[in-house]
């Protein structure tokens, strides 16, 4: 297992170089002048453009630019935006918010999704099953920006239960409803995934064996059925958490949350190549590490999987 983890970590190096290069070249390949809108309607003075061009190595060929950028990155320097703000500062401000939001979404989707899945699988066909199926179908069908706006208007504006606009440095309480909205789609998937897995395992031979041993129904379900059923669910949750950690552009936008998704979105709009590359590279690394974590967890849950 140790060697497997080491191998996977070493694989991160070429992936890191590959992604940074692709993102870097893509951002600079976006047509248009990055300084076009920077200084208001009159445009930037030529001396400023010249200075910036030199500072950001824009006059050099792309590979050279990239190597220079990478060199800075390895020294722990994410670079500066055109406004002179450190990218690392931006990340430090935005990432805790995203982590909070992602964790809240994850807790909602895992707890409610798994509970609904188990409930429907155990009850069998009937009212609860139909209710959950209809509700999950609804959640899957409605886009997040619709459910987000509706909840914002109803709970935030009409009922005034929540703050419709969260702002910077939000508390956990302020992020509960946005987190729920963000997690709702995956919640529906998790409910269905759990339900299907439980249904499949319900008739499994080893469940019959466990029953034939005279174990209580509670133990048969919670020990023998659940662990097998949760293997695919855990995989999904882990991968989804990796995606959530990449920020949520729509949810952040609706509720005015200053997370990493919004940061990337604005940076792309402003053609802030340094910011985009730095942030996205970080997100890619987080995602890859999450995937590694899922694979390790997978082996821990299913002893048939061994990585050596």
């Amino acid at each position, binding site marked *: 297992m140790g060697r497997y983890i080491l191998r996977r970590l070493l694989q991160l190096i070429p992936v890191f170089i590959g992604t940074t290069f692709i993102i870097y070249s893509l951002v600079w390949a976006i047509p248009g002048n990055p300084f076009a809108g920077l200084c208001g309607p009159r445009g930037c003075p030529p001396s400023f453009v010249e200075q910036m061009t030199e500072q950001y190595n824009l006059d050099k060929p792309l590979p050279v630019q990239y190597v220079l950028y990478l060199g800075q990155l390895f020294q722990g320097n994410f670079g500066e935006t055109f406004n002179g703000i450190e990218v690392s500062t931006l990340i430090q401000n935005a990432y805790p918010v995203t982590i909070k939001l992602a964790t809240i979404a994850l807790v909602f989707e895992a707890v409610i999704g798994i509970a609904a899945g188990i409930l429907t699988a155990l009850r069998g066909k009937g009212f609860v099953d139909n209710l959950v199926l209809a509700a999950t179908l609804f959640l899957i069908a409605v886009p997040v920006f619709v459910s987000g706006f509706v909840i914002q208007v109803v709970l935030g504006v009409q009922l005034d239960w929540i703050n419709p606009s969260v702002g910077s440095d939000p508390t956990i309480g302020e992020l509960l409803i946005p987190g729920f909205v963000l997690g709702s789609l995956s919640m529906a998937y998790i409910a269905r995934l759990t339900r299907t897995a439980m249904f499949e395992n319900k*008739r499994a031979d*080893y469940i019959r*064996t466990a029953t034939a041993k005279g*174990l209580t129904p509670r133990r048969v379900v919670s*020990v023998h059925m659940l662990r097998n059923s949760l293997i695919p669910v855990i995989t999904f949750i882990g991968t989804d958490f990796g995606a959530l950690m990449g920020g949520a552009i729509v949810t952040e936008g609706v509720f005015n949350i200053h997370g990493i998704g919004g940061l990337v979105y604005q940076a792309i709009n402003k053609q802030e190549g340094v910011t985009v590359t730095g942030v996205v590279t970080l997100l890619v690394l987080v995602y890859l590490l999450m995937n590694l974590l899922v694979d390790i967890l997978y082996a821990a849950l299913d002893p048939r999987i061994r990585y050596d």
Partner: protein
Amino acid sequence: MSATDDNTGGSPGARLLEVEDLHVEFRTRESTASVLNGVSYHVDAGETLAVLGESGSGKSVTAQAVMGILDTPPGFVTKGSIRYRGEELLTATEERRRGLRGENMAMIFQDALSALNPVYSVGFQIAEQFRFRRGMSRRDAMTKAAEMLDLVKIPNAKQRVKEFPHQFSGGMRQRAMIAMSLALDPDLLIADEPTTALDVTVQAQIMDLLDELRRERGMGLILITHDLGVVAEVADRIAVMYAGRVVEESDAESLYARPAHPYTEGLMASIPRLDQKGEQLASIKGLPPNLAAIPAGCPFHPRCHRAQQECREKLPELHELGAGRRSACHFAEELISSD
């Protein structure tokens, strides 16, 4: 039919299990299949009853009904009686039946790989019973589990107890399954085709092991199989099932000497024999009946070479032929007297 049961057995205290006129239906939205249509058999302590029959004859369903692990729905017991040491099980509470499982009656299954939980160690799955039925500590239960593996002759039991089912070979897995079923020392063991998934040399080892354990512990053993070779060696009595009924019941010796039902005859003729090498294997023509539409009269008549008009009209009762032999064929007497 049932009144004669009492005359055949030994001391009534030794009668472990009696299944009487058991009917089970499988109900689906489209149709209802009569899977069991009046199964009756019994097992005494220390005896091996072999239940023979093709797939779909109801061997396993009867066993599942006895254990109380029938999938409901679709399976429903509609009629009959299952008595364990005289106690009626079909009207017993679910809690009482659960109490009997493992403790008094246990079951081993055909494919030990799928019958064992893949994500828990073999030891965990055996120890579970000691922990939750006997209140033992985790550590003591694991020690007992290793002892059980030792009992079924798994080498290096202390090490292997921590391993997972997929790390065991087929034969070792079935041994572990047997160890698991014997953990709480039941008096009745139901083995549902325990050797079908194994290769021939391992089959013999497992059968020997089962036979030995039965003798040592004085258990009653119900051996469900379609393999007549397996039966010949270990069975005291044999019940042959067809289309959800027992069609012949006999001590092993008499049945092999002279079957009292054409179906048994057909089964025995279909065993490959060395002295008939090169000839076509005998088989019973046709297929077992569709259980949603069992033919009128004797359900075997469409496949029977002795079928008469009577067989198409009248369902033959399982009737006494003397000396503990019973057959559900109109011509059973002729079958055993002629040759």
